[in-house]
């Protein structure tokens, strides 16, 4: 395995595995509450953080984390309070974040468009040793939240009103989901890039759903698919000169299509199994209305 002889490739593979685990792990909750594109929005906002990092000569990953966390909290607050114009406020936040990133980047001395592109679409071979440490710390946080609080997060994403009546701290948990999604975006930034990170949050979950009937199984399968595509994407980009982000995303979509094609026959087989056990219907319908029956409304 000559691929492991290169230090930069070792770092890239570690980052790829961590992204493969964390992105679907938080993505499943976003998909569950039908906010699949939340990750995309946070990715746009994080661009301002990257620009700020270059401008201030600070670590772009930490700056992106800080800005993404602030942005995700803002998104969550808009969700609470801005019922009528929530989507317009979100659009302004997303595109403001993207424009701000490009603007700040052009103002800095070290930043260039080429630099920005590596953050937008991922660039595995530029993962530095400090980046790996940061990614490990952030990934540990994401795993702790998404696995440790899985019952609570399942409940608030399944039925928020019901969860509030059980007395769970729903607002706090919602904020935690938003912050965790923001952290995941910056974990994944170097591997798949800010514009493609949402794909790795959503596509493995969508693919896993084709086969599974339970939340636990969907979670496990999505993480498995996530790790598989990000690792094979990283290896592919080493041997063939292609960027890692698009390779990973296209692989994930290929797996989704394959599983979706497989799911049709599987569902029909299951339906036949349960049809045999089904009860007969007991609904009684009156045969006809009596003449004096008053049906005026």
């Amino acid at each position, binding site marked *: 395995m000559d691929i492991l002889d290169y230090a930069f490739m070792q770092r890239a593979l570690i980052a790829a595995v961590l992204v493969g685990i964390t992105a679907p792990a938080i993505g*499943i909750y976003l*998909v*569950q*509450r*039908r906010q*699949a594109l939340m990750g995309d929005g946070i990715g746009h906002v994080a661009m301002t953080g990257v620009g700020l990092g270059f401008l201030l000569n600070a670590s772009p990953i930490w700056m992106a984390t800080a800005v993404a966390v602030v942005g995700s909290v803002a998104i969550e607050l808009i969700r609470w309070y801005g019922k009528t114009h929530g989507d317009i406020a979100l659009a302004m936040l997303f595109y403001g974040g993207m424009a701000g990133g490009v603007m700040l980047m052009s103002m800095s001395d070290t930043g260039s468009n080429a630099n920005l592109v590596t953050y937008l679409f991922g660039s595995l071979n530029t993962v530095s040793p400090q980046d790996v440490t940061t990614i490990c710390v952030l990934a540990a946080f994401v795993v702790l939240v998404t696995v440790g*609080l899985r*019952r*609570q997060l*399942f*409940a608030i*994403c*399944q*039925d928020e*009103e*019901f*969860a*509030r*009546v*059980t*007395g*769970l701290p729903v607002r706090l948990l919602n904020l935690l989901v938003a912050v965790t999604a923001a952290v995941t975006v910056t974990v994944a930034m170097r591997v798949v890039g800010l514009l493609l990170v949402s794909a790795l949050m959503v596509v493995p*979950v969508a693919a896993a*759903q084709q086969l*599974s*009937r*339970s*939340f*636990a199984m*969907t979670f496990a399968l999505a993480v498995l698919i996530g790790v598989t595509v990000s690792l094979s994407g990283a290896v592919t980009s080493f041997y063939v000169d292609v960027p890692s982000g698009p390779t990973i995303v296209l692989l994930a979509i290929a797996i989704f299509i394959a599983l979706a094609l497989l799911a049709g026959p599987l569902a029909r087989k299951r339906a036949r199994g*349960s049809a045999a056990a089904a*009860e007969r*219907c*007991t*609904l*009684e*319908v*009156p045969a006809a209305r009596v003449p004096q*029956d*008053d*049906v005026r*409304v």
Partner: protein
Amino acid sequence: MTEQMTEHLVKEAGMTEADREPVPVISLRGATASLGSRPVLRGVDLAVGRGEVVALLGANGSGKSTAVRAVVGQVPLSEGRLELFGTPLKRFRDWARIGYVPQRTTAASGVPATVREVVSAGRLARTRLRPLGRADRAAVDRALELVGMADRARDSVNALSGGQHQRVLIARALAVEPELLIMDEPMAGVDVASQEILAGTLREQVAGGATVLLVLHELGPLEPLIDRAVVLRDGCVVHDGPPPRAVGQHALPGHDHVHPHAAHDAEPIRTGLLS
């Protein structure tokens, strides 16, 4: 109001001394609430005593759903007071005493989940942040048995019928092992077989001493269980007493009450065509 309540409890057969509690389980007084700029509740009084089964009736838009959502703290009151088990809502923390069935047509969400996973979520009122123990799993099993869904526990909720979705949502509330059940239209879109099962489940809960407040569009198979009916119209209570008797064709067995109608004491509909 308190005197009436005590009287009612004394009349209740088979009650021991300890069961007599003068404090109503739910006490809503002079409640007003609006959705947007539209007033939905305009001074609603609602008291439910321990062991009572109260049905909240009314036409679509009368405010009955808003009233129960206000009772569980999901609609803010602009005026009025709400006490649960004698504690003002603001200081109420004992949510494990309440089992809530929100108005839903489905128990499914964006990701597949099994019947058991959804019902287990109800248990969080008791477990909060700690993991599920043996007693919690047993409570989930019992809740599934009660609604007759134990054999479907491992199936995806996506594969269920409308009535079965409703049974899952009720099992989720029962998994809490609540003293007070609050249900918003539990019979909506439920087939006759499921209605009978739900009526049986509710009968057992009531026999076990549970207090029940439920929103209904019509009394249906639950009629024999209901002690009192509160009828709302345009955000005001217009009847509080024995459930209205079904008359005429409405009383026929198997009558499927689906046509739109106004409350029995509603004023005639003015279309403006004759004026």
